[in-house]
């Protein structure tokens, strides 16, 4: 039996090492982004790349700052576009979560349901979101529901797959132990299966959220009067390369922010994971 004080010291050292590693990772990230931006700026300043082809980082930053209060050229300010896209992405994501998470868990736990649903799911799974557009227009129109549906399909698949795989990987020893204790199948599913599936299910949610946010362009391609994808389209129609790159950058930054936030939520909700490591 190890001394608890030694254990605590070991954990403290481990945490310190982890913090240092994290700091190094962040620093490396900042340096590589800075190098990337400097090289990009240099290429534009020295006119190695034409301004018609690629706006410089400073022009893009200027476009972002200007767009905060200026609706030109697409008719909406940046904030309005962000809120519009955010609304779409969140509706699609939460719908996929509400439908996909229980479906994946139940499919993974109950074999008859798995046999029944899996063929349909496998059929739908490889379809790219853009392929849904013509049928979505006819069935759901061109409003928020229709666009959210496109995002729903992108986010639904990783949520189902990961929650399905997560619950299928539940340790059989725990299941057998629970059975020995007289737990019903439903109780085992609820108290052992679901918690076991959560780490993978959360990983699926992070992937889904990133995918969903990235599908905005496809969703807003359907029809739109606001949104970041719309802003990019309008930038293209009016030959504004700075607006196009600004839109791309904002999508990337918000996507990063969303997945980071979800990872934080995951760490908070699944705090107990540390005990199993």
């Amino acid at each position: 039996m190890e001394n608890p004080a030694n254990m605590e010291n070991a954990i403290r050292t481990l945490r310190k090492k982890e913090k240092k590693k994290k700091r190094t990772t962040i620093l490396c990230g900042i340096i590589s982004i800075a190098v990337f931006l400097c090289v990009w700026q240099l290429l534009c300043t020295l006119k190695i790349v034409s301004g018609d082809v690629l706006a410089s980082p400073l022009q893009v930053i200027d476009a972002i700052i200007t767009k905060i209060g200026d609706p030109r050229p697409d008719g909406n300010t940046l904030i309005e576009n962000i809120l519009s896209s955010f609304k779409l992405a969140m509706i699609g994501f939460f719908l996929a979560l509400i439908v996909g998470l229980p479906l994946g868990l139940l499919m993974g736990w109950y074999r008859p349901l798995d046999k029944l649903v899996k063929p349909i799911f496998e059929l739908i799974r490889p379809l790219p979101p853009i392929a849904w557009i013509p049928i979505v227009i006819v069935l759901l129109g061109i409003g928020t529901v229709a666009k959210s549906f496109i995002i729903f399909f992108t986010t639904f698949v990783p949520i189902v797959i990961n929650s399905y795989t997560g619950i299928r990987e539940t340790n059989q020893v725990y299941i057998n132990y629970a059975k020995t204790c007289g737990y019903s199948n439903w109780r085992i599913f609820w108290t052992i299966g679901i918690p076991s599936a959560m780490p993978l299910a959360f990983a699926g949610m992070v992937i889904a959220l990133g995918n969903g946010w990235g599908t905005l362009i496809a969703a807003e391609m359907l029809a739109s009067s606001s949104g970041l994808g719309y802003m990019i389209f309008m930038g293209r129609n009016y030959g504004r390369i700075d607006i196009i790159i600004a839109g791309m950058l904002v999508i990337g930054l918000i996507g990063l922010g969303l997945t980071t936030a979800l990872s934080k939520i995951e760490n908070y909700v699944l705090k107990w994971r540390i005990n199993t490591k």
Partner: protein
Amino acid sequence: MKKRILSMFLAAAMVFSMTACSGDNKDNSSGKSDGDSITISVHPSGHGLPAYVAEQNGYYEEEGLNVETLVYIGAPPQMEAYQTGAWDIGTTGFGGIVLGVAQKDLKIIGLSIDDGALMGLWTKEDSPIVEAGYNEETGCYGTAKDWKDAEILYTQGTITDILLIKTLDKLGLTIDDVVRTNMDSSPAFTAFKSGSGDMVQANASFYFNAEEEGWVPATTGESQEIFLPCAITASETIIKERPEVVEKWVRAYMKGVQWIKDNPEEAAKMFVEFSEANGVATDEENALKFVNAQVIDIPSPEEQMEYFAEGENGTVLQDRLAEVMDIYIDMGNYTEEEKAALMEEDSYDSSFMEKMVEE
């Protein structure tokens, strides 16, 4: 440490690779510049039809040209391709004129169909806009009250913007008073048919599809007096370095125009082929209506020279373009600098049409 250096190197490499394929594309002569080879770009629409006719009827061979045709569904991809040096000569609408002539180095060397001729915002027969009746003064159906907050499905950045603004202006409204939903023509048509929106853009060949559906043109290019020709454009490089090739191509294109004028029924069949080969469905009956109503009116070289003649502030053509640009500038879509670039004398070259007139 090695890993950090490697990651920085990869970041730098990424920027280089991102920009490597672009470069400065002022030299837009295509890779096929030997002899009389040329790459052209068109849309699967009325201004692209004479080029298709020239190809099908062997006019390019007659001129000793080896032409590769690139078809783009709209101006943005067409002009992005131009930026990469994909083509030398192209026909395009107003959006393409701004993106290519004002923002790049393309020059207008001739004109094609009138974009305003078959342009309309359509609504359903039972809509309050139609029920309110047609107003001769405003040139549209409905009152300001009917139009307010109406959802209009159309492709923004095209000449339909001008139709909408002119109509709204007559009604005492602005673009902020309606909901503008950006969509391509084909999905917009389907969406409107399925019950979305209050009005839909149906221009060119779609005009007759809308008519067939029993829809009513709430406002049209004709009623709002929009008259704006599409353009034949060529790169500065090819005009300077191989003017004889440009001349041959213009001659072949104008032969195509003449053939369409002489054979509208055959031309309609060709338009169906041309559209379907490029993923735009149309039928022969509507194609014939379209040819007769729009394509047949492509100005002859003599008529084209009238556009290059002196107008109020510049040439007649420049005055037309300036009027439209002013509306876009008011909307915040384009800038005064872009208008100034479009107004430069250097952006036009009527010498090829002059030669066609002489011949």
